[in-house]
């Protein structure tokens, strides 16, 4: 929670807090500590598996550990079979490409968090955005309409579809007081079924040209609709990167300005801090909840648009049993960034770096890519009590006191208490 004016009276005015006492510094350190612990535990798991499994040597375990930390710089193996590291344009370009949807789903979760809502519905919003984007991008003939215009329409369609889908849990929450977590989970599965149904009924969108691709929807490049590379392919030749990452960063900056510099953004944050106080202050809390979820949905929809408009990604349409992981991974991205839209850019890139490391681990060792998912889960687990880590850093809380004196009330209320909104879990 970035800029709540919560500095205690002592520190106000002239005495600017020292570097380590600043709220932002502590948040960053807490996140870094979480990352470090996550990676360390991941390494321990690698070594433990090698210790209990005769077919895995300690040498390959050590390789796995190195890839956990430096997988992004991996350049494969040399003639002697040792791992080599260096600047790998393909890895870094792919990292930026994969970060694009993660940044946007991370923003989606973060905006909802700021309004006190836990948007676990990003996968569903992502899927609805996918369907809308692909339908618009593939059904408007590029022979008659300029491809750039189709691109824009498809992008907007994804955002609108996501917004509409996201507003459903918002409406249920504000009008009927249904817990948004349950509503989001149900809408996720409904979206998965609807999208499967939609593509099942639209044979013209399926990829019939290539054999073995019948389960996939056509790439948007088959209609000539492709996100511009914006010269990024010159910097990272051979990778999948395109202009989408710049658009994602731009959106993150816009969301940051919106949340911290506009009245409406302040309103949303007020609702998130205390819905009843906001209502007392004359804010229409019910409307704000719906709008916040709609914005969150739009962002998740944009994630889908940018991902599938890249032209080289394919959508497996029979998805009624699975939800896209990129939607759920928005949660760790947002948590790691402490819901700060600008920090989401970095945490999104970091998460996709872990993804790339996972692929390197899979390709180069006997381990597999799920190791990085474990690390991500550990980071989420730690961020649940990031407040504690922050207090540890600032020395307000000591681990080995049997009965600590009640610490002075932390300067900031537990960042996400509102999000859980325990009382309303009744739904």
């Amino acid at each position, binding site marked *: 929670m970035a800029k709540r004016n919560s500095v205690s009276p002592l520190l106000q005015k002239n005495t600017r807090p020292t570097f380590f006492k600043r709220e932002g510094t502590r948040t960053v350190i807490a996140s870094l500590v979480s990352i470090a612990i996550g990676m360390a535990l991941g390494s321990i798991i690698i070594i433990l598996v090698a210790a209990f499994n005769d077919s895995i040597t300690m040498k390959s375990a050590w390789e796995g550990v190195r890839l956990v930390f430096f997988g992004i710089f991996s350049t494969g193996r040399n003639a002697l079979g040792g791992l080599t590291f260096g600047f790998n344009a393909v890895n870094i370009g792919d990292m930026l490409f994969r970060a694009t949807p993660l940044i946007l789903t991370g923003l989606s979760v973060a905006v909802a968090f700021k309004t006190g809502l836990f948007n676990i519905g990003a996968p569903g919003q992502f899927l609805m955005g996918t369907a809308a984007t692909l339908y618009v991008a593939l059904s408007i003939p590029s022979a008659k309409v300029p491809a750039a215009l189709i691109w824009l329409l498809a992008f907007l369609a994804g955002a609108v579809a996501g917004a509409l889908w996201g507003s459903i849990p918002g409406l249920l929450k504000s009008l009927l007081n249904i817990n948004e977590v349950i509503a989001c989970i149900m809408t996720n599965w409904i979206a998965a079924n609807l999208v*499967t149904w939609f593509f099942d009924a639209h044979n013209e969108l399926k990829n019939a040209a290539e054999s073995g691709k019948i389960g996939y929807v056509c790439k948007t490049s088959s209609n000539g609709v492709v996100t511009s590379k914006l010269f990024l392919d010159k910097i990272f030749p051979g990778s999948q990167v395109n202009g989408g990452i710049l658009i994602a960063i731009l959106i993150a900056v816009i969301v940051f300005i919106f949340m911290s510099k506009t009245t409406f953004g302040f309103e949303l944050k007020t609702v998130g801090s205390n819905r009843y106080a906001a209502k007392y202050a004359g804010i229409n809390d019910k409307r704000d909840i719906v709008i916040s979820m709609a914005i969150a949905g739009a962002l998740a929809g944009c994630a889908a648009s940018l991902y599938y408009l890249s032209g080289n990604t394919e959508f497996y349409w029979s998805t*009624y049993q699975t939800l896209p992981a990129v939607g759920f991974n928005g949660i760790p991205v947002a948590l790691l960034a402490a819901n700060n839209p600008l920090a989401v850019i970095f945490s999104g890139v970091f998460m996709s770096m872990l993804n790339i490391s996972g692929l390197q681990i899979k390709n180069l060792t006997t381990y597999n890519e*799920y190791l990085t998912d474990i690390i991500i*889960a*550990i980071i989420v687990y730690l961020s649940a009590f990031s*407040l504690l880590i922050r207090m540890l850093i600032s020395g307000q809380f000591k681990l080995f006191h049997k009965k600590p004196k009640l610490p002075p009330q932390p300067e900031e209320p*537990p960042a996400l208490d509102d999000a859980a909104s325990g009382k309303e879990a009744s*739904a």
Partner: protein
Amino acid sequence: MVFLIQQTLTYAIPLMIVALAGVFAERSGIINLALEGIMIFGAFVGVLFVKYMQEGSLFTPQSGQWLLLITMVVCGFFGALFSLLLSFSAVSLKADQTIGGTALNLLAPALVLFLINVLAKQNVLRIPQSSATWFMIKKSTLGIPKDQDIGFFGELFLNKVYLSTYVCIILFVVLSILLYKTRFGLRLRSCGENPQAADSLGINVAKTRYAGTTISGALAGIGGFIYALGASGCSSTGEVAGFGFLALAVMIFGNWTPGNIAFSAILFGLFKCIAASYATIDLNGDGVAWLAQIGVSSHVYRLFPYLITLIVLAFTSKKSRAPKAEGIPYDKGAR
């Protein structure tokens, strides 16, 4: 008809037992969003245990029922162990319970898939010998000749059933009594309603919440294994098709009381059963699969359980009575 009821029970029993798991956690004041993750973990542990036991030939198909019971105990134990991660963060560290639960939901599939890939070099862990010959109770298991007519109820309750179904029903009844008719149950419920008052009467809120979440984890672990046994032929793939979340919905629909939960679990089981096998369900035995013939898309049936959950929640949300203190970390000093 027998097939329909048995198939419904295949889905209803794990939903029922996992929803009860949710009740134990929430009644003690902890939102257990991690049910899904614990189920995934329990299913994996169970399948792995059965795999090792079959390979180690400690058991034979004749003693399969014993193996089933032992596996359920093992799954319960590891489910409880896994849930300690949640109670540690939620009770001892007073962390956000929704995020803690989400973390476990992310951790379980990742850990399970990681281990499955290390052990089996693929994305699914199967047991070496058929679960049907080992665990399913059939006429032959009971010494009844194959072609003997044992009547409708005999077919329903004695042929092609799993012992785990009955164990779970007994467990469900016993634990419901525990929750409502014993001192422990009363204390547990009081911690979910008003922990301050409970504390003032000398009840250790932290311990009680640990107990509630641990029972919850054990039940969810067992439920995960039963799901794997009934719905996926005793294999583990790092997912349980959203059953943990569906169980949460069943719990809310059942208004946190065991009786209503049993009813709503059967209802949801029926929906799930229709979605899975609507094409072959023959209600009146005339050889016509009626549901497949009325021409409704299969997608509608698949979508139905989730849609109905939302609609039901919309209608019952005003009346629902969640434990008052759930989701709020207990703070002695708070007023």
